[in-house]
């Protein structure tokens, strides 16, 4: 196995590459692999059942990872891995881990099809800017939802009235405060041992991670996130997070955001890039799990057909060839208080469950506005569990996702951003207001009539 020191050696001594040349080589290589392996996106098949294509994708990703490696943008050197090293890293990747503590602990598994285990549901407002006065009530709204298995914090944007800035000293304070408040939210919900996923969301640098490596903030039963830069790149800040995790034994997860329409090409190329990035980050970062987040170049949201397909085919590829703990982000265009966010939620929950994925939480309005709440996360969990209990196959799931898509696709051009948290929740009782609850119940009934069997 390649350890962090060998990764650092390669980042200093690997082949030299200009970033632009690396990008263009990536496009050419990916375009070739799309053809060679017959990877094809079909707008009518969002949830794929195509095992042959999934296996081809796995091989294409392995070829891309081997041919490209990972570029360190600080040193302009390529961190290369042989196919054997990549395969070995996948072989050694964790297949089962206990996240959290005591009665609140959950087992996260590398999923296989029909393995008898439902997805782990992550809840919270990832990347969503939350001011000090909203942070605790918003996090409590998620902590109170029993179907949420692990909790991801939002981003605390101010401390003592001052804006938190990237790389500034307030990132340290913000991440510590974030953890204190998330823990308090969990304690007040009677779930003090729940796993805090991607701890340190208030910092975009290694400062935040370093600041919380202490049992008072991030416990070793929690996790922190190490991004792969788009596409197939890293830098010293990312590798510093790897080094931080080397001695502080909290769990780690990658964050991979291939751009659909970017240097990898269309959805087919983005799927290959995502597959390769999962392999490379398994080898270079030694992460325990992965966050999948394909980004549509125009609409951003994962709830596009292309975004859901990329997740679906990648989930199938790994479940069949090298199971890993893959958590897919579920970012929506719409915001809390709207029917649209619930339709987007249902579509992604179905697509992910039918593709052997876990969820990596629901980012309302693509994490731009604090228009989020625990209620849409509840709905995600309800749909995912119902689909699991129904043993819904990919064909049926695809049909349902397409019908749901028709109910929210208008929002890509004209987003219904919904309302901020205090307008959809009673901030003292931490309960949804009547209008939002009524919208949820009405939409749930529509989704039930479409074929999702919720427990009565």
């Amino acid at each position, binding site marked *: 196995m390649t350890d962090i020191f060998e990764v650092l050696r390669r980042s200093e001594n690997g082949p030299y590459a200009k970033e632009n040349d690396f990008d*263009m080589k990536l496009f050419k290589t990916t375009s070739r692999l799309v053809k060679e392996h017959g990877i094809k996106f079909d707008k009518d098949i969002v949830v794929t059942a195509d095992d042959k294509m999934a296996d081809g994708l796995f091989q294409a990703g392995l070829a891309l990872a081997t041919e490209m490696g990972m570029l360190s943008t600080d040193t302009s050197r390529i961190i290369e891995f042989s196919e054997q090293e990549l395969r070995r890293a996948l072989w050694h990747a964790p297949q089962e881990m206990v996240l959290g503590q005591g009665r609140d602990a959950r087992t996260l598994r590398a999923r296989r099809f029909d393995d008898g285990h439902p997805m782990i549901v992550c809840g919270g407002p990832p990347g969503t800017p939350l001011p000090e006065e909203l942070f605790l009530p918003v996090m409590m709204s998620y902590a109170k939802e029993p179907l949420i298995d692990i909790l991801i914090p939002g981003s605390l*944007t101010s401390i003592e009235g001052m*804006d*938190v*800035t*990237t*790389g500034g000293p307030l990132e340290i304070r913000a991440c510590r405060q974030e953890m204190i408040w998330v823990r308090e939210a969990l304690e007040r919900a009677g779930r003090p041992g729940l796993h805090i996923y991607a701890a340190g969301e208030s910092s*975009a640098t290694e400062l935040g991670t370093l600041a919380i490596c202490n049992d008072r903030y991030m416990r070793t039963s929690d996790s922190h996130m190490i991004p792969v830069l788009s596409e197939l790149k890293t830098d010293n800040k990312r590798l510093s997070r790897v080094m931080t995790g080397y001695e502080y034994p909290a769990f780690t997860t990658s964050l991979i955001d291939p751009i659909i329409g970017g240097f990898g090409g269309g959805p087919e*190329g983005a799927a290959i890039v995502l597959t390769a990035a999962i392999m490379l980050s398994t080898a270079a970062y030694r992460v325990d799990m992965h966050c999948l987040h394909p980004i549509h*170049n125009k609409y951003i949201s994962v709830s596009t057909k292309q975004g859901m397909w990329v997740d679906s085919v990648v989930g199938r590829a790994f479940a069949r060839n090298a199971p890993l703990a893959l958590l897919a982000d579920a970012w929506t265009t719409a915001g809390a208080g709207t029917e649209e966010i619930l339709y987007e939620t249902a579509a992604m929950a179905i697509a992910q469950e039918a593709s052997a994925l876990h969820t990596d939480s629901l980012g309302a309005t693509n994490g731009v506005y604090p228009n989020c709440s625990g209620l849409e996360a509840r709905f995600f969990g309800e749909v995912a569990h119902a689909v699991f209990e129904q043993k819904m196959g990919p064909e049926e799931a695809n049909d349902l996702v397409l019908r749901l898509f028709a109910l929210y696709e208008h929002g890509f051009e004209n987003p219904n951003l919904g309302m901020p948290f205090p307008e959809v929740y009673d901030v003292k009782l931490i309960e949804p207001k009547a209008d939002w609850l009524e919208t949820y119940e009405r939409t749930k009934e529509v989704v039930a009539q479409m074929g999702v069997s919720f427990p009565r």
Partner: protein
Amino acid sequence: MEHDANDHTLERITEAMVALEADAVPKLVKEALEAGYPAQSIVDALTVGINTVGDKFESMEYFLPELITAAGTMDESMDILRPAFALDEAAAESKGTIVLAQVQGDIHDIGRSILAAMLRAARFTIHDLGHDVAPDLVIDKALEYDADVIGLSALLTTSLPHAAQLPRLLVDRGLEGRFQVALGGGAVTPDYVARIGADGYAEDAAAAVKLMHRLVAER
């Protein structure tokens, strides 16, 4: 000079641009010049082609590398045409000078690369300063290039305060009103742009091109 109706030189330039024939386009441009076509007519043919490339990018028929290739081909072609612009100044005219940067603390590049390529295609003069650029340096470069517009991109919420510094620095340096300031990127909202006193917001690259036309015109 009159040209035969069967002479499809200009159409061929457009087709080659749309087909991303990066080597063929400059050759065709040279041939058209030598055949006596006015520079403006050649620029128009190139523009039709690159606008089609932009449309194909929007509809996901083409992708970012293809957009960048087309923008580079456009630049190369304009360099060939430049000597002829002495006779045809309208064709040579840049639509405006824009300094682009990813705000301090933000290392994302791809969205800004898309915008730079689309603005070049729309015949703006672009100086892309890259990522993680301090606001004071952005202003220095805008002065150096005599920019019309400063365009900032921010994908990280925690990098936004650096963007907010820029309008304040312009005031403190006695440069208020010297440049138009536009913001975009995943972390930016119209409310935020208004709050920090910037001049324009665009939700995506296509909207940003329209915004730049407006900001340059208003300057």
